[in-house]
C-alpha cells in the first residue's frame, strides 16, 4: 500500500516542509501520493507533481479547504486514508492542527514529531523537551504521523512527473469560519529553512534593540529567532519563538544572543550544526551546548560582529 503525504501550502505556493515530509515517506519506502487540499490551489498541485518520488497527486480544490480548517480537512483525509498504509504531515501548526483529528476519526494513535524511521512501523521521537528519545512501534493498520521536518532531508523539488487526480470535496462543516490572518511578510529566509539564525532573548531589553539582530542576520543572509521571554515581552513576534513549544530549527549556524539556555529553548535549537552563544553571564546554561561561547555584553559584541563578518 502507498503512503499519503499531506502537502503544506498557502494555496499559491508549496511550502518546502512538504519536501522533507516526502523525505520521511521515502525513508519508510513505497509508493508516495500527495494530497493538496485547498482552494484555487491547482498550481500547487502542478508544482507538487514534479516532486521527485511522488507518483500521484490528489487535488481537493474547494472553498471549504481554503484555510485548512480541521473540521473540513480531517474528514477529507480520513475518507481517503483507508487506501494507505501511512498518512504523513509536517509537524507544522497546520499539520498539528488537523492530523490528530484524522487519527481520532480512524481510531488510531498518532505518532507525533518523528525524527527517525527505523522501519515501516518503528520510529523515534523526542519526549520531555528532547531530553529523552523514545522508540515507538505502531500496530495501527493506518499509521498517522507528523514529521519533524528538520530531521529529514528534503527530496528534490523537480524530477518527478506524477499525475494529478481530482478528489471530490465534502461539505463545509460550518462549525468554524475564517475571519482574518496576520502573516508576517519578510524578505528574509524562513526560520524552518534558514542556514543561519540569529536569535535574541530577554537580554535584548526592547523590540528596538532587536534591530541589532536583524542587521547581523541580513549580513549573514539569515533569519531572526527569539526566546519565549523575548516574545512574551513583546520584543519579537510569536512566530519567531524557537523551542519546545515554538519552532524547531536546525540551521548550519545558530547565534544565541542574550538567551540563558532554558531546556525549553534548547529543545528547539540544539540540533543546529554550529551554535554560538553571546551572553554576559559566564555561567549561563547556553554555554553548555555552544560550540563557541563569547562572554560579553551583547550591545558591544553584536555591532562588532556585524562589522567583522
Amino acid at each position, binding site marked *: 500500500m502507498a503512503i499519503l503525504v499531506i502537502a503544506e501550502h*498557502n494555496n499559491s505556493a508549496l511550502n518546502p516542509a512538504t519536501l522533507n515530509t516526502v523525505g520521511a515517506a521515502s525513508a519508510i519506502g513505497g509508493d508516495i501520493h500527495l494530497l493538496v487540499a485547498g482552494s484555487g490551489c491547482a498550481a500547487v498541485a502542478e508544482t507538487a507533481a514534479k516532486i521527485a518520488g511522488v507518483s500521484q497527486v490528489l487535488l481537493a480544490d474547494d472553498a471549504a479547504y481554503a484555510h485548512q*480548517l*480541521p*473540521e473540513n480537512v*480531517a474528514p477529507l483525509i480520513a475518507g481517503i486514508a483507508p487506501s494507505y498504509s501511512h498518512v504523513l504531515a509536517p509537524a507544522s*501548526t497546520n499539520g498539528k*492542527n488537523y492530523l*490528530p*483529528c484524522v487519527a*481520532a*476519526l480512524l*481510531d488510531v*494513535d*498518532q*505518532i*507525533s514529531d518523528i525524527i527517525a524511521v527505523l522501519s515501516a512501523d518503528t520510529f523515534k521521537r523526542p*519526549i*520531555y523537551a528532547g*531530553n*529523552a*528519545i*523514545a*522508540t*515507538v*512501534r*505502531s*500496530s495501527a493498520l493506518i499509521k498517522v504521523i507528523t514529521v519533524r521536518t528538520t530531521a529529514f532531508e528534503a527530496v528534490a523539488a523537480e524530477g518527478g512527473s506524477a499525475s494529478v487526480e481530482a478528489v471530490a470535496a465534502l461539505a463545509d462543516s460550518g462549525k*468554524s*469560519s*475564517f*475571519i*482574518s*490572518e*496576520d*502573516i*508576517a511578510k519578510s524578505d528574509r529566509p524562513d526560520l524552518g529553512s534558514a542556514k*543561519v539564525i540569529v536569535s535574541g532573548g530577554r537580554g535584548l531589553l526592547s523590540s528596538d534593540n532587536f534591530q541589532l539582530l536583524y542587521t547581523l542576520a541580513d549580513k549573514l543572509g539569515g533569519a531572526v529567532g527569539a526566546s519565549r521571554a523575548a*516574545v*512574551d515581552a513583546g520584543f519579537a513576534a*510569536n*512566530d519567531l519563538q524557537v523551542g*519546545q*513549544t515554538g519552532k524547531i530549527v536546525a540551521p548550519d*549556524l545558530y547565534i544565541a544572543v542574550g538567551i540563558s539556555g532554558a*531546556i525549553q529553548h534548547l529543545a528547539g535549537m*540544539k540540533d543546529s550544526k*554550529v*551554535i*554560538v552563544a553571546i551572553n554576559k553571564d559566564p555561567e549561563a546554561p547556553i*554555554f553548555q*551546548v555552544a560550540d*563557541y*561561547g*563569547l562572554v*560579553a555584553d551583547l550591545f558591544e*559584541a553584536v555591532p*562588532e*560582529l556585524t562589522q*567583522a*563578518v
Partner: protein
Amino acid sequence: MKGMHPEQPCRFAGVNFPLYQGDEESMKVLVAVKRVVDYNVKVRVKADNSGVDLANVKMSMNPFCEIAVEEAVRLKEKGVVTEVVVVSIGPNAAQEQLRTALALGGDRAILVETEAEVGSLTVAKLLKAVVDQEQPQLVILGKQAIDSDNNQTGQMLAALTGFAQGTFISKVEAAEGSFTITREIDGGLQKLALKLPAILTTDLRLNEPRYASLPNIMKAKKKPLDVVTPESLGVEIRSTLELVKVEAPEERKPGIKVASVAELVDKLKNEAKVI
C-alpha cells in the same frame, strides 16, 4: 483576591446561544489538566532504557493546563460562563493538581483514576465520555503536555465530539452565539469564529496564570472532587503504540570559549566554515 462579581450583569443572559443542551442562563466549561513532571526538572533516562526516572521528581500541573484553568476562571469572572469543572485523567496523586485547579477558581473536579499509561487517544475518549455526562459548551485544554509533547488530545476530542476546534490560542473574545479566537500559527496569527460547543487549546500568550492564595487553597479542600474509573465511563484502555525503548539524546561535543569577537569570526570562518 479576585472572585465572582454577582453584581456584574451577565453579558449573555437572554442571548440565544446555540447551546449544547442546558439552558440559556448556564454555560459550563470543562477544563482538562494533566499531572506532569515540573517544567524546571531536567529528566534522566533510566539505565534500563524503559523510560525516564520519575522517582522523587517534582510533579506539577502541566503549564499549558494552568493557562487553560486561568482562562476558564477569567471567563467565569466576566460572566461568560457559570461553572468551571476541572477533570484529570491519571493516578490518584493527580488529585493534587485538581486541588490546585480548584484553588485557582475551579468549582468542582473529576478524577478519572488510572495507574495505567494512557495515550492521547484514550485520554480523548475518556474526556469524550465526561463531555457526554457533563454537557459543557466549552472545553479548554493545554495545547501540549510537556512530558509526551504529543500535542494531540484537544484535536482528538474535537474530532470525537464533533465540536468546533480552536488550537494554540492566544486570545478569546466571546461574541453573540460564538467565540472569536486568535491562534498562534507558523506564519503569524489567525482569527477564527467558532460556533459553540467548542474545544480550545491554549498557547503561552493567552494569559498569565495567577497564584493560588492561601485562603483559596483552604477553600479548595472543601470543593467537590469525584473519582471515577475508565470502566465506569465505558472506555477501554488500549493503544496501537508500543514503547520499545527510551534513550538519552546524543550529547553535543563540548565547545570552547572564545576571548574576542575577532577570535569568534576566525573560528566561524576557518574552523567551522559556516560563514
